């Protein structure tokens, strides 16, 4: 069979201030009609650049240096921009990465879908509007007539991704390029959306080039997997072959660190029995303009012992992050009580709250935003010590160097600024900063969600190791059950502001009691392979 898409020796480079950087370095791959091919790799592997090069939607400083991209008898790498416009949207649909920012905020949903039809002369103004509703319906958007008149900000992330899928399939293209289509979504939403996308392409016979960092997602969805690293393809083959018998070292490493694919045993429950934190019937409401206040946290109770890790798991909007902020006194409790090491801190006065800050710290999700870009690494880690006037300059320097060792960063990084560090390095700096005051409790709010899987595994390992060394307790907030399994002693599952189930990690995974827990477990990608694969 003739391939639908045939990329040959593609080289794409980015102009930088020093020298051009080759992001894609001689990539050749093909997609047959109706086939789903997944391109897997970590950030910087060139997988997104490869996908975008197909329709020449590259960043301003990127350039296709050489190679060819054969699609339906034309070399897309060399056709003029004008003829490319008849391909984009019509023959090749693109599902972009981040649904939150990929729709024009000032245009109605229906208009944005209809625009594809109008641009390619597939419908006039009135028909386009009607057809847009039909397409939104096909993309699985509930109440498409009403939604078509709404603006993007009135829709949830999952619904926006459905709109973007509607835009991609509107003109019935032969190839759909999906660039991390569900990475920004909750795991249950991810499953529903990917199921639907798969169903749509099965119906229409379109091929899919699926770009993802998640091997588990790729293994669930793709016919073939292409593994990329540093701009090159290191391994390619049918999904089952790559997953069960990886040839290349890099693929093996990726497989080993993918949280959904490994059944890492949860650490044994440590019964120190010394109660550190106790939350009782916490309630937090947020006022909404012109409506009843929204209850983000609705009667949450849990406890945490010294040296223990409790995971709070739930989807976005479940109230897990707000709960974390309540116990740290970063937000005011509506009702209920928080007890920290025997003292009631629910309504602590500023001096007591300040004393609490010394013993309870926070690690944020986004290591790119939580470090002051003007601080050096040394300044960032030293800041908590300086704020609490601990030691003099020299002794603080010693402490900072010790902390850097602890999080396994080289001393040469001390004078660097966050922009010069990788995501994993930044999160290590954030961890070092959180540990600077030797706290009893660290609230980790999605600490690895923004990181590549292999880096994720390292950071999680580091957190476990630090807990063994220092006896710190973690309140670990995550939307990802698979990540939680690797380090939590106990898990509390949250939904709509309540804890629906709580238990020891192993019990919860093997014998979930609540329907919602079972739903969450079923949505973890890659479970079919990891549990049902013939060895």
């Amino acid at each position, binding site marked *: 069979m003739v391939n639908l898409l045939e990329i040959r020796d593609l080289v794409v480079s980015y102009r930088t201030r020093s020298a051009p950087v080759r992001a894609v370095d001689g990539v050749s791959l093909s997609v047959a009609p109706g086939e789903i091919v997944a391109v897997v790799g970590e950030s910087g592997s060139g997988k997104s650049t490869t996908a975008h090069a197909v329709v020449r939607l590259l960043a301003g400083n990127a350039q296709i240096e050489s190679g060819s991209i054969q699609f339906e008898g034309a070399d897309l790498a060399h056709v003029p921009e004008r003829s490319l*416009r008849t391909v*984009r949207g019509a023959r090749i649909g693109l599902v*972009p990465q981040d649904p939150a920012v990929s*729709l*024009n905020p000032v245009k109605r949903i229906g208009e944005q879908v209809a*625009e594809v039809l109008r641009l390619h002369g597939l419908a006039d103004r009135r028909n386009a509007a009607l057809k847009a509703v039909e397409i939104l319906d096909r993309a699985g958007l509930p109440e498409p007539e009403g939604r078509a008149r709404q603006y993007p900000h009135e829709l949830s992330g999952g619904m926006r991704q459905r709109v973007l899928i509607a835009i991609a399939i509107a003109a019935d293209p032969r190839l759909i390029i999906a660039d991390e289509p569900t990475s920004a979504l909750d795991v249950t939403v991810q499953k529903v959306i990917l199921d639907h996308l798969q169903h749509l392409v099965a119906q229409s016979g379109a091929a899919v080039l699926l770009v993802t960092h998640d091997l588990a997602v790729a293994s669930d969805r793709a016919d073939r997997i292409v593994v990329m690293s540093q701009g090159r393809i290191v391994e390619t083959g049918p999904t089952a072959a790559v997953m069960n018998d990886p040839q290349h070292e890099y693929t093996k490493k990726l497989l080993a660190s993918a949280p959904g694919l490994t059944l890492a045993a949860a650490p044994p429950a440590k019964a120190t029995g010394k109660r550190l934190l106790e939350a009782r019937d916490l309630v937090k409401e*947020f006022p909404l303009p012109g409506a009843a206040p929204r209850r983000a946290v609705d009667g949450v109770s849990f406890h945490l012992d010294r040296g223990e890790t409790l995971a709070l798991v739930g989807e976005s*909007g479940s109230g897990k992050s*707000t709960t974390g902020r309540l116990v740290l006194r970063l937000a005011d409790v509506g009702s209920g009580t928080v007890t920290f090491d025997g003292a009631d801190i629910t309504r602590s006065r500023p001096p007591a709250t300040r004393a609490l800050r010394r013993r309870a710290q926070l690690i944020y999700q986004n290591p790119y935003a939580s470090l002051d870009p003007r601080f050096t690494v040394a300044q960032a880690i030293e800041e908590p010590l300086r704020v609490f006037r601990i030691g003099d300059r020299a002794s603080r320097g010693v402490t900072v160097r010790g902390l850097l060792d602890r999080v396994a960063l080289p001393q040469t990084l001390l004078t660097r600024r966050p922009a010069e560090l990788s995501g994993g390095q930044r999160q290590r700096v954030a961890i070092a900063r959180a540990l600077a005051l030797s706290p009893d409790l660290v609230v980790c709010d999605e600490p690895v969600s923004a990181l590549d899987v292999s880096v994720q595994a390292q950071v999680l390992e580091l957190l476990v190791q630090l807990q063994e060394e220092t006896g710190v307790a973690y309140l670990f907030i995550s939307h990802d059950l698979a990540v939680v399994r690797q380090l939590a002693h106990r898990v509390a599952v949250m939904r709509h502001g309540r804890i629906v189930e709580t238990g020891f990690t192993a019990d919860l995974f093997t014998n979930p009691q609540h329907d919602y827990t079972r739903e969450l477990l079923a949505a973890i990608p890659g479970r079919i392979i990891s549990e049902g694969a013939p060895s």
Partner: protein
Amino acid sequence: MPRYVIRRLVQAVGVLWAAYTLSFFILVLLPGDPVSAMAGAGADSAPVDPARLEALRHEYGFDQPVPLQYLNHLGHALIGDLGDSVATGRPVTQLITQALPQTLLLTASALTLAFVLGGGLALAATFSARPGVRQVLLSLPPLGVSVPTFWIGLMLVQFFSFRNQWFPAFGNDGLKGLVLPAVTLAVPTGAQIALVLAKSLITTLDEPYIGTARAKGAGRRHVHLRHALRNASLPALTVAGLLVGQLMANAVVIETVFSRNGLGRVTQSAVSTQDIPVVQGVVVYGALVFVVVNLLVDLVYPVLDPRIVLAPRRPVVAAV
């Protein structure tokens, strides 16, 4: 929505009151005496009969205690009476409403011109695919901002009136007389609009939804005009609202440079004769225009961007 408008109107009245009060006390505290100025007594001319000055002071109420003067004037101002000009004896409101149409015509045409020139320049600069052209176009706005208005006026007059005699250099004669002052006034305003709009367009064109539009198969012009412009126009609109104040201030200079009758001239002569009621009337009028324009800008926001809702602002903490 109505509540929002009412709140903004109350705020507007507050601003007007503050402008009135502040200008009143500043003018009272200034050294010098409007009555002596009116009686023709400069610092260097012969002294005027003190009894006559006293009578004049009494007539205009300048002999009363300052707080009483203030309340008195404020009471009259509330019913639309801003007092009489000390220099000419005519009611201030009459002076202003007579001069107003000329100035409104000048500022309105300058603002329109500024939008067209500034907007066009920003669009052309960001649309241009050639880095060289883009660079040249983008360096024009800073130039326009930094050159003084009166100098632009003088250069335009020199070239278009004296050397070529295409447009009259002075006076209020019809549309032809309007061209040079309007252009002069539009240059700095347009330059600032161009500056903000170009910057905003460049940022907007980097947004992911622009990528989505291109992936649909949209051409550059379509993406630029249909997707980027509306999103990018909000900051420019905010600036335009603020620029109106500056435009009015510049109008004073320009009307003097081009010897046009208008509010600028009224202000200039009132200031030089220390005609306190007139100066104050102009200040209140200026505040009024500024407040109205910015209220309009606020009302246009939600039309351009559906995410902005005209609701009473309460601290809404987004759940993370």
